[in-house]
């Protein structure tokens, strides 16, 4: 979908994506020539259509990350994470609860590379694997050991 400022005959540029409310997104466009602003307000079906494509509306994640359509719509960053039972908030622990196994930055970076719908399950499973081996931290060595152990 593209928007044209008819008086200027200029393509409008996306300015911001507002936080969705009750399934509706507010996407603001402006004309680079006259500065006129307009907002596209989606209904729930339109929001869902974009969400189903697994894309975000707005700039690429490098730089300032724009709001993701799926994030606001579902309360989760990933359009698929919530479909796994027990995933809801699995990666977040209540404040004050002791962290059973620490993750090194390098291991966290590897975890961040995998799809969010798999991540909570992977985190829990790898922590259990580390605990069984008596490790206090999940590092790249533990990840590689898990791969070997499970024959990957």
């Amino acid at each position, binding site marked *: 979908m593209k928007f044209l400022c008819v008086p200027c005959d200029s393509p409008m540029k996306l300015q911001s994506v507002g936080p969705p409310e009750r399934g509706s997104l507010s996407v603001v466009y402006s004309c680079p020539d006259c500065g006129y602003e307009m907002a596209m307000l989606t209904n729930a079906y339109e929001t869902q259509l974009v969400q*189903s494509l697994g894309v975000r509306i707005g700039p690429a994640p490098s730089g300032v990350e724009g709001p993701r359509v799926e994030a606001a719509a579902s309360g989760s960053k990933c359009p698929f994470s919530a479909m796994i039972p027990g995933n809801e908030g699995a990666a977040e622990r209540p404040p004050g609860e002791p962290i059973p196994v620490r993750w090194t930055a390098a291991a966290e970076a590897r975890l961040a590379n995998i799809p969010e719908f798999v991540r909570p399950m992977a985190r829990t499973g790898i922590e259990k694997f580390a605990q069984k081996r008596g490790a206090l931290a999940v590092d790249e060595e533990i990840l590689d050991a898990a791969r070997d152990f499970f024959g990957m």
Partner: protein
Amino acid sequence: MKGYHDIAGDGGSRVLEQVVEQRARITDGLAGVRHLVAVGSGKGGVGKSTLTLHLAGALRARGLRVAILDADFNGPSQARMAGVQGALFVPGSHKVALPRTANGIGVFSMGSLVPESEALDFESTAQGESHTWRATREFALLGEILGSFEWGTLDLLMFDLPPGAERTVQYADFLGPRASFVLVTIPSEVSLGVVARSVAALSKGPNRVLGYVENMSGYYCRDCNAVKPLFASGESPGLGIPCLGTVPFDPELARHCDRGIPLEDLPGTPVGRALDHVAQQLLDSLP
């Protein structure tokens, strides 16, 4: 006044750009895969999953590198049958390592993620209207899986498709002309009729249909060591595509599938020999 095609870009929403990027990730992820083979039917309950797993086993026994993607997200069965229900998904340097069976077949199945007591569910802003968006979301999920798992260097990546002639065609569209199709039927006119619809639908596209397999073509009686009729015999109208082979039903094999353990003596049985024959026919028919 400018029209849609007069305007370069999309003003910053990047929706189309991201869809193109998704396709590029899939292409990149499958760059090391020599053949994409989708095992479908159109008809449900004809043994697509069992056949996929055991064809993969027969191909693996020939030394080929094989993986299975259980594309039946709503009724995944490969995790149980392949014994990877409790598989751990381990992040590699960039992608997720693929769980493997004891004999080295890579398997992705939603059954490793979603317990059998739960249905696959997607959050939605359009509650009660899932018929309008669910298929789109499932294909986006398929793309995410293809782009984010380590498929590596494979001779064959086999897709275990869900039932439905229209779904078979949707997978053909999504996977593109690289994907070849094997269709599975059983020797009943009802099944043949449904599979014929899939053949007709696929014939309109660019995908190669390698042939069909007649599954449950009799049953193997271990007591008699003989294959006996399971369906009333009659003149089959055929499907107008090559028959890659017929495979008898083996209750013992079904029992092992339920338990997720391999049937050790399978290669020496009529069923094992039939599967081996189909595997060879499949290899011979690949481009």
